[in-house]
Every structure is written in structure tokens, then in C-alpha cells.
């Protein structure tokens, strides 16, 4: 929404450039705010998403991810700030924009008692997609065998696949996935990641919200870390972690190495032993590992670098709570 105090109304070379860039971006969000009573759900969020990008919005529950997404999708009106999606404003309901975007909702929003095939055909027909194409999409997400199963009888992972298929059935340029792997077991999550990567190839832009740090690290080209309605940091996951200068953690089975000996290793910062494994925290993992090798204490060694979890801890000063 244009606000009176916005500088956007005036024509200036800078503005012209900015407008050009907005057209080039798949999504452009600027100064977004949304308040529910006293709660500032979204409190000044700005970012751009490029075409073909896999963009993640990461943060704990209640960080404002979903509200941000809903404003971009056109389900809610922002109190302040501007949003353009594929060069168009999403609010009010924009029926020229809607066919170009696909939305997978947090809840599995299915028609009751329809089979997977009927479900997908129904959603497809809302976009003028023929039934055969909907059936083909069912194969793409690996549900070909479950075509005639009613949605209530699908497993959690299958239901998520179907809801992703429902978001993709009309071949949108831009796809929103809201916590697609919530409540899935690790195996199903990994399978779904493969599917999501597949969707991303071929120039399709994906915006994903998640509260799983590992998911964002594995899937996203860039991640916006959100907490309390604000973006704390934005960048490629690897860059965020690298910029952190977080220590690596090296762990081996307990008893291979005495705690005192471990502390004496060159480069070791802190050492802890919980009775199961001994963990050495270090900023020079190669030196520590070399020294451990010399002591022949590398059985079952595991080395963990910094993660987005560490980034979150560093940014907020508190443990990440999913």
C-alpha cells in the first residue's frame, strides 16, 4: 500500500531504477509491517527474491514467517510497506496474478473423502488444467500408486506430497511452501527434499518457510533468518555460517581419550565428556584431528561445523527453539 510518507510517489532517476529492479525481481518486499493488536507480527521486513531462486524464511514458531508469506500471497493486507509479486501487487485479490503462483498451505487443505486423483483434478480444474495433466502430476510427486486412495487414508508424507502437487498442478512460475516437512519423519523429510529440489530445477522460483535449520541449509540458495517480526540476517546459508566464526565440534567415543589429555591437544578450546562421547570444541579442527590421529584416538570420530543453529544463537543470544 502506498503511504503518504512514502517517497515512492515521486518520479526520480533512482525511483525509475528501483521500479525496473522490482520488475526484474520475482518478489520484492519493502518495509512490511503487520500488527495484530499489540503484537507486531511483522515489523519492518524488506527483501527481494530473484527468479529461479530457492528462498527460505527461517525462524522459530511465531517469528512472523507465516504472516509475511500470507501478505506476499495476497491473503492479508499489510499495515505498511509494499509488496510486488511478478511485478504485480498481490492485494487486493488479483486474479491475473493467482494463476501464476502456487501455494501449499500449512494445513493439508483437502476436500473431504476425495481420492488423491480427484483431489488433484479438482484443484487443477480451478486453473483450467485438464485431468490428464493432473494425473501426470500425481506421478511426478510419486503418488501414482495412491491415485485411488482417499486423502484421509494417506500417510503424512503422502499427504504432503499431494498438497505440493496441488500447488504445482497448474505449473506456476512461483511456488510458496509453508513448512512442507512439518510433522514428517526423517526418512519422509529427506524424500521430500529430493522432490523440492526437482521442482526448483527449470527456473521455477520457490519460497519456503521452515523452522528446521538443517532443511534451510540443505535446500535454500538464500535464507532470511527471522525472529520477532524482523529479519536478523539474510544470505546464502554457507556464507551466514562462515561469517559466524563458529567453532567446530569434534567428538569421539568416551574413554578413547582422557579429558585432561584432550584439553592439552593443540587448538582445543573446550572439552566435555557426557559419558557417551567426548566433544572437543575448536577453531582449528585440522590441528586437533592431526593430534588425535597421532594418539590413535579417532575411532568413530564425528566433526560438526557451524550450523544455522549457531547463527541463530549468535544473532539472538538464545537457544534455537523450533
Amino acid at each position, binding site marked *: 500500500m502506498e503511504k503518504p510518507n512514502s517517497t515512492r510517489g515521486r518520479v526520480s532517476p533512482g525511483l525509475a531504477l528501483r521500479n525496473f529492479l522490482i520488475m526484474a525481481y520475482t518478489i520484492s518486499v519493502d518495509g512490511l509491517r503487520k500488527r495484530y493488536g499489540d503484537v507486531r507480527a511483522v515489523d519492518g521486513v524488506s527483501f527481494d527474491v530473484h527468479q529461479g531462486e530457492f528462498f527460505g524464511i527461517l525462524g522459530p514458531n511465531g517469528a512472523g514467517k507465516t504472516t509475511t508469506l500470507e501478505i506476499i*500471497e*495476497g*491473503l492479508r493486507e499489510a499495515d505498511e510497506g509494499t509488496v510486488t509479486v511478478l511485478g504485480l501487487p498481490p492485494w487486493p*485479490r488479483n*486474479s491475473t496474478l*493467482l*494463476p501464476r*503462483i502456487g*501455494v501449499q*498451505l*500449512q*494445513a*493439508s*487443505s*483437502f*476436500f*473431504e*473423502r*476425495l481420492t488423491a486423483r*480427484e483431489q488433484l*483434478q*479438482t*484443484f487443477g*480444474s*480451478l*486453473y*483450467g488444467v485438464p485431468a490428464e495433466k493432473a494425473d501426470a502430476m500425481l506421478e511426478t510427486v510419486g503418488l501414482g500408486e495412491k491415485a485411488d486412495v*482417499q486423502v484421509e487414508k494417506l500417510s503424512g508424507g503422502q499427504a504432503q506430497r499431494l498438497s505440493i502437487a*496441488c500447488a504445482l498442478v497448474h505449473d506456476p512460475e512461483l511456488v510458496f511452501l509453508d513448512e512442507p516437512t512439518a510433522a514428517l519423519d526423517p526418512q519422509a523429510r529427506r524424500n521430500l527434499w529430493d522432490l523440492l529440489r526437482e521442482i526448483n530445477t527449470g527456473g521455477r522460483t520457490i519460497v519456503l518457510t521452515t523452522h528446521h535449520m538443517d532443511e534451510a541449509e540443505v535446500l535454500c540458495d538464500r535464507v532470511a533468518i527471522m525472529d520477532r517480526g524482523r529479519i536478523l540476517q539474510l544470505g546464502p546459508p554457507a556464507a551466514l555460517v562462515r561469517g559466524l566464526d563458529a567453532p567446530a565440534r569434534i567428538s569421539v567415543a568416551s574413554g578413547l581419550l582422557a579429558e585432561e589429555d584432550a584439553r592439552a591437544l593443540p587448538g582445543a578450546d573446550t572439552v566435555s565428556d557426557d559419558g557417551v562421547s567426548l566433544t572437543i570444541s575448536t577453531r582449528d579442527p585440522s590441528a586437533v584431528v592431526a593430534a588425535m590421529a597421532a594418539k590413535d584416538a579417532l575411532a568413530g570420530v564425528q566433526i560438526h561445523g557451524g550450523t544455522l543453529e549457531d547463527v541463530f544463537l549468535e544473532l539472538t543470544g538464545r537457544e534455537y527453539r523450533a
Partner: protein
Amino acid sequence: MSTFASFKSLSRAMYLGFRRDKGALFFTIVFPLMFLVIFGGVFGNQTTSKAKVIQIGRVTVLDQARAHDGAELGKIMSITGGTDRAAALKKVREGDADAAVEQRGDSVVMHYSAADQVKSGTVRGYMESIVQTANIAVTGRPPTYRMVPEQVEDDSTKAIQFFTPSLLGWALASAGVFGASQTLVTWRTKGILRRLRLSPAPISAVFGARVVVSIGIALAQMALFLAIARLPVFGLKLQDSWWMAIPLVVSGVLAFLSIGMVIGAWAKTQEAAQTVTQLIVLPMAFLGGSFFPLDGAPGWLQALSYVFPLRYLNEGMLNVMMRGLGPSSALPQIGILLGISLAGAVVATRLFRWDAA
């Protein structure tokens, strides 16, 4: 992306969802039909059973009456012969027969039990009239006065004639209100409304589909009701303008849908919607005259009954299907039902929310 394609596929989705919902099928289709069968069966054949009379030996007047007008007599009495007087009296005493009749000279003696005075009184009346008729016949002169009995009720007051439209009204009310309120609440809480809002399908297609599916279900209910009530067992007779019940049913369904939409727009959970729906539909069925005729009800109750849309539907259907009123007699009721639909739609639109939050 045409509106019609969206409308068609949403209608199909809703219809399949309904057809596969065994609970909904039972409560909207089977349950009311069970009531029809039970009510039609219980109140349908309320003709008094025939008087059972045992004739002991020869009874001249009775033999004459049977010979003369046996068919007519057979409608009110079943007469069995017997020679064993003691056995016949025992049967009367035990209630297996209503009377035993014998002739002693010129007297006709009727043995009866005081246990069922109404029945014995009836038989006594019959017997007296037979004896009188015989007496007159003996004089050889035609009777001066004749009594012609005529029942005030014709076929149209048979129970099935009342219960078919009334229970149909109830069935339509509960299917309509439930259908709309449940769809709206379920679709909202499950996020289907949000999903539809994010599709290019026009909102009119979404609601149009619900309305059309409900009308389709209502007409199927009507067809089933009429088909069953017209079975020979129940013997429903329809008057000439019965077809006028179709627009009545359609406008009734619209009214019930709009009430359901109001409930569905207001209620946050399915449980709340269900409770409120029951709280409206059941009193409406009772006071709207679906379970008993309101003709004999006190004035205040009759006045109260007009609060409920079902009352107009029931009255309209009774008028055209059973009372033989002309097609135009249903117009006021149709008008009122459409008015209620409109008012409900306005309120529902104002209360409508896309989101559960």
C-alpha cells in the same frame, strides 16, 4: 479457468464428498425415510378391527342378513359359525371373540363380555340394527326413514397424506442447514477456503456449487419420499398441483442453506456448528409442524410456528400436494422462503470469514 468449469468441478467434489459420507447419507436420506415408514405404518391403518362374532347354531335374522347383504356386513363383522355353546362363550370370556349370538325362539340372544365395552357396544348396535331391519322386513312395507352414514374425512386425511410432506420438510431442513454450516466450517478450519481464495476460481462458483448440490440432494430426497409413500402399503394420493411442491422445495432449500451459512459463518468449530444446527432444526421440526399437525394446536403455538421457515414450506406443500389447492396458492410461501434466503445470505456475507484465525 472458466467460472463454469470451476463450478462444475467444485460441485462434483462436494457431491462425491457427500455420497461417500455414510453418516450424512444416513441422517439426510435414510433417517427421515425411516420416520416416514414408521409414522405411515403406525398411524396409517388406524381402521378399527372388525368385530368377531360367533354364531351358535341357527340364527335366522343373521342368516338372512348375510344372504341379503353379505358383503356390506362382512366389512364390519366377521361371523364364524359354531355349534358348541360352551366353547363359544369361553372364547367371548377370554376376549378371543367379541360376541356370541344364538336364537331362542324369536329372541336373538347376544352374549358379550364387559371387558371391552366399546367393542361389545358396537356389536350390540350392529345386532340391534339387524334385528330391526328384519322386523321391518316382516311387515312387508318399505322403511319410511333411512339412515345414510357418511364419513367426514376423505382419503386425504390419512396419516401418510400428512406425514409425507411434513417429514420431507424436516428432512430438507436438516440436510440444508447441516450441509451449509458443516461445509463452511469444515472448509474454513481445514484451510480449503484459503486455498480456494488463492486460486483464480470466482467465489460465486464456490457458493453456487454448494447451492446446486444441495438442491440436487433435496430433489432426490423428495423423489425418494414420494416413491416410498406411493407404494401400495402407504397409498399416498397426490393432488393435481403437486408439482408446485418442486419450486417450494427449491426455495425452502435456499432458506435452509442461508440459515446454515449464517451458522457456518459464525461458528468457529464443527462442534459449535453442529450444536447450534441441532438447536435450530429440532425445535423447528416440532414447532414447524413436521411431526404433528398444527391444526389442533393452541393459538400461541400456531403463531409461534410462523417464526420457522419450515412452517411455510410444510404448509405450502400440504396445500398443493394434499389439500388440492391450486398452483398459485404456493406463491406466498415461496415468496416468504425466498425472502428468508435473502436475509440469511446478507447476514452470512457480513459474518463470513476466510480464515479460522
